[in-house]
C-alpha cells in the first residue's frame, strides 16, 4: 500500500467544500492554496505554537450556523494536545478537525516528531471526548469515507496519514494572517 500524498487528500477536501471557513496549520498552509476554491474563507494560523485547533474552536462557537474545518498537522497538535479536551468539552456541532499526520516536522526539514509512528490521534480524540474520530491511511479509503466524516457526529477528528516531504518552498502563498482575519471577520458579519 502506498503512502497517501497530502495534496491528494487536500484535493478531495477542497472538492467537498462549500461555505466552510478553513483554518490552516503549518504544512497544510503550504499545500492548500493552489487547491482552494474559496480563498476568501481561508486563514492560516501562524506564530502561536500549534493553536489552529483552538482558533477554529473560537470561530465555531461564535458562528454556530457555519461549519469550520481545521486542517491541523501532527506536530502542531502535539504542541496543543489539551485542545482536544477543550473542544470535546465545548461540543461544537459545526467543527471538523482534520489532522495532516506525516510523523514529521516538515516545516523545519522533516525531523521526526516525538510521537512519530507511535501516537494514535484517533484514539486520543475519542478518549478525550470527541463523539467521532476516523483514520485514513490511503486515498481510496479516504475518498470512500469522506462523506461519512462530513455528515457524521461532530466535533470529529479525521486523521490523514500522509507522506512527509520535508521543508518545501510552499506550493502557494496565502494572505497574511492579519489580512485574512480582517476580511473574513467582515464577511462573516455581513
Amino acid at each position, binding site marked *: 500500500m502506498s503512502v497517501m500524498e497530502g495534496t491528494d487528500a487536500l484535493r478531495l477536501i477542497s472538492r467537498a467544500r462549500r461555505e466552510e471557513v478553513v483554518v490552516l496549520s503549518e504544512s497544510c498552509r503550504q499545500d492548500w492554496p493552489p487547491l482552494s476554491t474559496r480563498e476568501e474563507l481561508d486563514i492560516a494560523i501562524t506564530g502561536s505554537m500549534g493553536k489552529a485547533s483552538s482558533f477554529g474552536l473560537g470561530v465555531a462557537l*461564535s458562528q454556530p450556523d457555519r461549519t469550520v474545518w481545521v486542517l491541523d498537522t501532527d506536530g502542531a497538535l502535539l504542541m496543543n494536545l489539551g485542545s482536544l479536551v477543550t473542544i470535546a468539552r465545548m461540543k461544537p456541532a459545526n467543527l471538523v478537525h482534520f489532522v495532516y499526520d506525516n510523523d514529521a516536522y516538515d516545516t523545519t526539514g522533516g525531523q521526526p516528531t516525538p510521537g512519530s509512528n507511535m501516537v494514535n490521534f484517533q484514539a486520543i480524540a475519542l478518549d478525550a471526548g470527541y463523539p467521532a474520530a476516523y483514520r485514513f491511511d490511503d486515498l481510496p479509503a479516504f475518498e470512500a469515507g469522506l462523506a461519512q466524516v462530513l455528515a457524521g457526529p461532530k466535533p470529529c477528528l479525521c486523521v490523514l496519514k500522509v507522506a512527509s516531504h520535508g521543508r518545501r518552498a510552499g506550493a502557494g502563498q496565502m494572505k497574511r494572517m492579519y489580512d485574512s482575519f480582517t476580511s473574513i471577520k467582515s464577511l462573516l458579519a455581513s
Partner: protein
Amino acid sequence: MAPTTQNLQAASVLDELGRCGVTHIVWLPDSETGFMYQAMMRSPFAIVPVCREGESFAIAAGLMMGGARPVVLIQSTGFFESGDSIRGLVLDLKLPLLLMLGYRGYLGPNKPPGDSAARFLEPILDAWGIPHKVVDSDASCHLISEMYQQAQRTSHPAAALMGREYRG
C-alpha cells in the same frame, strides 16, 4: 501578608463585563479569580474552560473573528506560559482583547511583590506595550470597563490585574 483590600465581589466584576457587552469568558481557574466560579456559572456569559492558558488567546481570537466579544481570565503564571500566542495572535492581529490576569503574589499597592510572578508581571506587560491597571476592590472595579474600552478604542489588548486571592 494578605492583599490590603478583600472587598472585591464576583457580582461587581461580572456587572462590569455585562456593561461592556462581553459575550464569552475564556478561562482557567486560579487563586485570584477562583472566587468568581459560582457566579460565573450562573451568569449569562458563555464560559469556555481551557486546559492550558495558551489556548485561551487562540480561542478568543477565533471568537472575535466570528463577531463575539470575549475576555480572557487566567492567572499571571498562565500569561507567562502563553507568550507566543499573545505575540503571534493577540498583538499581531491587533485584537482589542481584555486580559484579566490573576495577580499572583500581589500584596497591595506600594507593597513589595510577594513572589517572582508578581515581580515580573508588570515589567513584562510594559515590555509588550500592554497597558494595565490593578483591580483589587469593588471601588476599583470600574477599571475593568476602562481597560476594556481602551482596548476597543486602540485596537490593542489591555489588562486588568485582579488582586484578590481566593480564601475558600
